[in-house]
């Protein structure tokens, strides 16, 4: 996936950048993170690095690891929430995050 993305033409990559930028602006303007009713909390026992805190994990039916490079945390490209341990494992199987610890 990474190689495929890196091999795109500059024009194609710029179009992806524009989509990523628009999505970031939309998310920032949506107030999504302040919406308590939709917040799903998961106890941190499932993700060691967040011990003793409530964290929000991706619940997308169709999810994609994000290419934005802000890692860790490893997060979903569609909702920007952290991947569940199962999703993280699946992403690693698909060749993502080769240098991440298990």
């Amino acid at each position: 996936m990474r190689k495929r993305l890196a091999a795109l033409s500059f024009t194609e990559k710029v179009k992806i950048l524009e989509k990523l930028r628009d999505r970031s602006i939309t998310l920032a303007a949506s107030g999504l993170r302040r919406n308590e009713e939709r917040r799903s909390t998961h106890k941190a026992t499932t993700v060691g690095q967040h011990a003793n805190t409530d964290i929000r994990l991706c619940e997308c039916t169709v999810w994609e690891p994000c290419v934005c490079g802000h890692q860790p945390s490893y997060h979903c490209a569609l909702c920007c929430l952290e991947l569940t341990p199962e999703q993280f494992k699946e992403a690693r199987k698909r060749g993502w995050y080769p240098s991440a610890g298990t």
Partner: protein
Amino acid sequence: MKETIEAINQMQAAGVIGRYAIGGAVGATLYLEPAATLDVYIFVALPTTNESSLLSLAPLYDFLKSHGGRIEYEHIVVGGWPIQFLPLSNDLERAAVEQALPTEVEGVATWVLSAEYLVAIALNTGRSKDHVRIVQFIEQNAVDRNKLQAVLGRHGLTSKWQQFELKYLKETDE
């Protein structure tokens, strides 16, 4: 982005700016997978006048404002992209722009800093996000290590690179 580049090219043709090249995350995108960014860094050579040796961005901003640009904090927004113009401030940046690579976006010609100079400038700038980008270049073999060493040597960055390698690249090379 096409509209943004066209406006900058017009500004160059009008003599408001000299050579320019795209740097930062957008520049790095030529070599790496796309990574989210909200603005475009343009390294730009500004003409100096005989009257003053001070560089001024005012003519550049005036030109872009008269072509539909609007100022937002430290950026000027053109074609939907906030642009930050970075006047060349040292020999490294001057060489980087001189040796920038021609490319195009949607058929519009432009220039992007070479991978080696992007890494050298990131190393020189030294913010956390610059370090992350350098690691990406190395991990994805997107930089010619021999050319990079030559650039680092020419601009007095070899020792800084050695420290960076020790701190961040030991695992990558193993």
